[in-house]
């Protein structure tokens, strides 16, 4: 692709365009039909007024007041939770790969898969049961002399929602990032040590750069997931964390406002646009982190 020293057989990259796309056809057909087609329907509807006329008017409210505020809150929440989730998830992945037995690690995978998919009323309930005013942890800490509700903390706040999100963000990170840590070969650390480098140098110069592309990918996944998750925030609080998908839910599937689906659709398209922008940043970061991997 770029350097002349590449020695790999031509067939690997050369091939005609057709032969590259062909094996991907089932994927494109599947996502095209079950994903893009419905999304297009939503996008087209967002460009229509309530009388069916073509208009951009659904998009104008997005740039003001409460809708803009919802976008900001959504981005803030997903950023904070994906930073926490990715760092702690990576830590867990490291500890497990490094110190746990294979069997234990397999069980943790199963737990993580289920946790990563949890949300809504049951999850909200678990955290209230643990950290609510009458929660288990709250009571235990109180007997130990620490009243967590003495100050401003409540589980029904932004901080609380961030805590609850950790419940699925960390396991998600753990699950998708573990293979990357497992892919670090022992020989690299040994070679590094043998060449006179400390562990710190090894992490700085080899391990972290090696893990970076996977980390960025996983981080983006967490960001996107956090951006669109809403059931838990909705089951826990009352507009404390106004998220775009909650508003979309109210507009598209609510009891109160009739005939504002087009605005909901516009919000959905707005989310896709935000994600698209994040995606560009992600691809750029991914590319620069994975220079050494492209042939």
């Amino acid at each position, binding site marked *: 692709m770029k350097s002349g020293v590449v020695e790999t057989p031509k067939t690997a990259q050369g091939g005609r365009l057709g032969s590259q796309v062909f094996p991907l056809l089932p994927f494109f057909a599947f996502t095209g039909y079950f994903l893009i087609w419905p999304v297009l329907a939503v996008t087209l509807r967002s460009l229509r007024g309530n009388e069916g006329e073509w208009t951009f008017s659904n998009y104008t409210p997005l740039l003001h007041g409460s809708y803009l505020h919802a976008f900001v809150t959504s981005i803030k929440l997903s950023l904070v939770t994906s930073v926490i989730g990715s760092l702690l998830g990576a830590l867990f992945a490291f500890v497990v790969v490094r110190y746990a037995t294979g069997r234990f690690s397999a069980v943790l995978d199963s737990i993580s898969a289920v946790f990563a998919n949890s949300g809504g009323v049951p999850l909200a309930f678990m955290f209230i049961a643990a950290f609510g005013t009458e929660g288990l942890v709250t009571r235990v800490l109180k007997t130990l002399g620490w009243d967590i509700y003495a100050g401003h903390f409540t589980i029904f706040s932004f901080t609380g929602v961030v805590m609850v999100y950790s419940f699925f963000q960390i396991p998600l990170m753990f699950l998708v990032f573990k293979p990357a840590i497992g892919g670090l070969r022992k020989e690299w650390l040994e070679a590094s040590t043998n060449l006179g480098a400390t562990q710190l140098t090894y992490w700085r110069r080899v391990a972290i750069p090696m893990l970076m592309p996977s980390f960025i990918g996983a981080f983006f996944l967490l960001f996107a997931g956090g951006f669109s998750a809403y059931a838990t925030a909705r089951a826990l609080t009352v*507009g404390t964390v*106004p998220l775009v998908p909650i508003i979309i839910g109210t507009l598209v599937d609510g009891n*109160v406002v009739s005939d504002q689906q087009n605005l909901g659709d516009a919000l959905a398209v707005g989310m896709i646009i935000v994600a698209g922008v994040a995606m560009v940043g992600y691809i750029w970061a991914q590319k620069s982190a994975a220079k050494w991997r492209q042939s």
Partner: protein
Amino acid sequence: MRKQFIIGVVAAALAAASLVATSSVSTAAGKDFSKCQNLKACGGMDALVKAAQKEGKLNVITLPRDWANYGEAMDLFTKAFGIKITDDNPDGSSAYEIQTVKTAPASKVPDAVDVGITYALDNTNLFTSYKVENWADITADYKDPAGRWYGDYAGVMALSYDTSIPKAPKSFADLKDPSFKNMVAIGGDPSGAQEALMSVFAANLASGGSPDSVQSGVDYFKSLKTSGNFVTALANGQNFLAGAYKVAFSWSFNGPGAVATAAKAGKTVKYVIPSDAVIKGTPYVMAIPFNAPHPAAARLWTEFLFSQNNGKTSMTIGSTKGMTGSKIFSSIMGGQNIWILGGALPITFDAMVAKKTNVTAPEGYGIPKGVKVITPTVAQQDAAKTLLKAQWPAIAGN
């Protein structure tokens, strides 16, 4: 797996096709019940019950069992007529109901919907005309002259509370007392959830505000938040059980159900209609979709819900085998009274009082004497939502 899947698809498609076929046969054989617009035109109660029983099924949608005593209504209906009820997505919304009528495959279309009034107004063309026997008793404000939709029941905003708290609230003003610290909650974001919106209207009225502007209501919550009494927890059964809050603004028509549900989980809950303000909600609206898959059952269900009879309940009813349709119908309690028992205000309540056909409401659900009762109009609700969108985040956020 692929083969199995294809078989599945084919089987499901066949099943659906046969369903469509049988339903058209049943209507073709006898009268076309999807066209008759009142009981007489349908051939009377005996014929209607017979046809409904032949259909054997009723599709309802988004009816929580503990909402407005619908659990009792459904149980009684099934026991009395032997018609199986399928309740699609009991926790769903009005928008979901409309969406389903519009897009669901034929066999899954609901036979009757119970939606917020704006949804009915915006989708009149989805519904068929059918005027129930008690049509005249329905308040004129809340019915379509052509009979495509009409109000069924409403509720008032009550306070529900855990009886273990030191001081029982009697009014909205009471909740400002420091003894309610970390205790008061509402059922959602008021700019998007009906019950929460009505909570703000109620607080507004109690604080001396007019329904044209809910600013006083917003200020009420702001002061509760500042004093630490208001918790931004969502009021629902599970959160209540976990101790997230002790007092909530709740629809009266969910009271008896909620009290029983809480008791099963070991909590004693009481409902009280506040002495300083009563907000009556806009009635929910009943309608029969023109493409209802069980047209006779749909009509029978509607007649049942608007019946003012006082008779057997699902607990007291015996076998109805061999009884004529009209005999069964007149022997069981009607929907209007079932709603009263559920703490709701049925749409024909005033007429029932005049005719003395109403049963006694459970204790504590009566509206205190001398209190002004207000129902916010749709325009007032829209204005309130706009105000709340701007101001609510500052209250709920932190």
